[in-house]
């Protein structure tokens, strides 16, 4: 944790810049840092991707397993998202069970994928009520330089897009693996866009120093139709109604651009 004295000096500097519609790293208020996506880099995983968002680095691995469906939806596969704030990623990350930040990160990524119905879970049923495919999305933060939500959501989507499921045959309720794979059914492409509020101004893609001084955070996840499918406000400040509606408009535009980085259209 950066001491509050440092952050007060920095807060002033960053806030003054934002008032002049500038940022410390030279970006415009609604610009992203440079984004790189590397897909399929972990061979052992059924799907994987690494996203570099400026200096932020997130690796996502997808594992497919066989498990039981939820009792209220017996004919659908199961989606599980977990996030690890790995201690090597930041001096502020401690080893141990997931804290509220990593739980929130995982749940925001989860909601974007779930609510946009990105995965065709109904195609992942093997025997209704008994056996289904379970999709484990593990978000692994490797370097924390701000805006983990957008980097993780993008990496998760990129990883899902190269996720494969092995072919199988059912014999007396036993699953027998057959050669070859088919792709995981993907129906939608949710993109998370995160805003910070500094000096009563909205900025997109806050990096670490901006995160340390911003009053509040707002993430909107936009699906391929341009609809909003999930929102999360964070931080101990607030937003005005006008800011929320402005954020929704910007999010829709930025999501279209970011989607092109992982989906060929």
């Amino acid at each position, binding site marked *: 944790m950066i001491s509050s004295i440092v952050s007060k000096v920095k807060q002033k500097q960053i806030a003054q810049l934002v008032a002049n519609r500038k940022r410390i790293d030279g970006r415009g208020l609604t610009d992203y840092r440079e984004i790189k996506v590397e897909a399929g880099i972990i061979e052992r995983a059924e799907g994987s991707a690494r996203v570099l968002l400026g200096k932020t680095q997130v690796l996502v691995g997808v594992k497919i397993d066989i498990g039981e469906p939820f009792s209220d939806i017996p004919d659908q596969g199961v989606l599980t998202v977990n996030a690890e704030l790995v201690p090597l990623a930041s001096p502020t990350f401690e080893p141990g069970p997931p804290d*509220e930040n990593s*739980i929130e990160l995982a749940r925001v990524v989860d909601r974007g994928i779930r*609510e946009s119905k990105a995965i065709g879970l109904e195609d992942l049923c093997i025997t209704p009520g008994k056996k289904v495919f379970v999709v484990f999305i593990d978000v692994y933060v490797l370097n924390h330089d701000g805006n983990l939500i957008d980097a993780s959501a993008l990496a998760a989507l990129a990883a899902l897009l190269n996720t494969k499921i092995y072919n199988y045959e059912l014999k007396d309720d036993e699953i027998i693996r057959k050669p070859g794979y088919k792709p995981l059914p993907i129906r939608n492409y949710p993109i998370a866009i995160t805003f910070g509020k500094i000096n009563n101004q909205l900025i997109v893609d806050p990096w670490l120093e901006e995160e340390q001084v911003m009053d509040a955070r707002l993430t909107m996840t936009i699906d391929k139709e341009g*609809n909003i499918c999930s*929102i999360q*406000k*964070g931080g*101990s400040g*607030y937003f005005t*109604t006008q800011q929320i509606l402005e954020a929704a408009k910007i999010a829709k535009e930025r999501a279209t651009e970011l989607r092109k980085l992982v989906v060929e259209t």
Partner: protein
Amino acid sequence: MSKPEKLLDKKGLRLDGRKLDELRPIKMEVGVLSNADGSAYLEQGKNKVLAAVYGPKEVHPKHLALADRAILRCRYHMAPFSVEERKSPAPSRREIELSKVIREALEPAVFLEYYPRTAIDVFIEILQADGGTRCAGITTAALALADAGVPMRDLVVACAAGKIEGKLVLDLMDLEDKYGEADVPLAMMPGINAVTLLQMDGSLTLEEFQNAVKMAMEGCKQIYEEQKKALRARYIAIKEAINE
């Protein structure tokens, strides 16, 4: 509970007979627990919520204390018997997330800088749940904070709007949340047009979202009036007790 055939009847009324933009019946009482510095109880439809505030008080463990302000800690917790199938009393990932967003919804209201090196603990217990418990929890917690005498910029009040069968509705109950198309919980300080919690899941167009936000805010303003009434009732009761 199984899926109802329809969430809206022919007249466009909801399962419990409400109109689209109608709140559930709401009841609040302030100062219900003798040990807490502040407390409140709320019923909103079948939701039953109890909140208590302890502090400002000494921080344990000590390293958590901040030199320039108080820390606000918040626990949102559901009783094992509050839902259809018994819920394990251990905090779930959902409860940990909600504790965080509720804390962040209350923080902007509290003058934490008045009480450096102290902690203010907010405990929210959901005794019975029927959808919209995070909102009910925030509404109740704000009353408990006020009852504890913690100075605030405004009361925080929360309400959800959402979409069922293509129509925007106010204050979703559990079945509507589960089988509807979208849920937008929102908390605000009505006096200063500050939105302190905003979440959403489901699917809404920009225009629908805009209208859902407007609708949730209208709901908040109605509940806000009830909050003020409940606080006033508490002060009158105290005044009478002193005069006796």
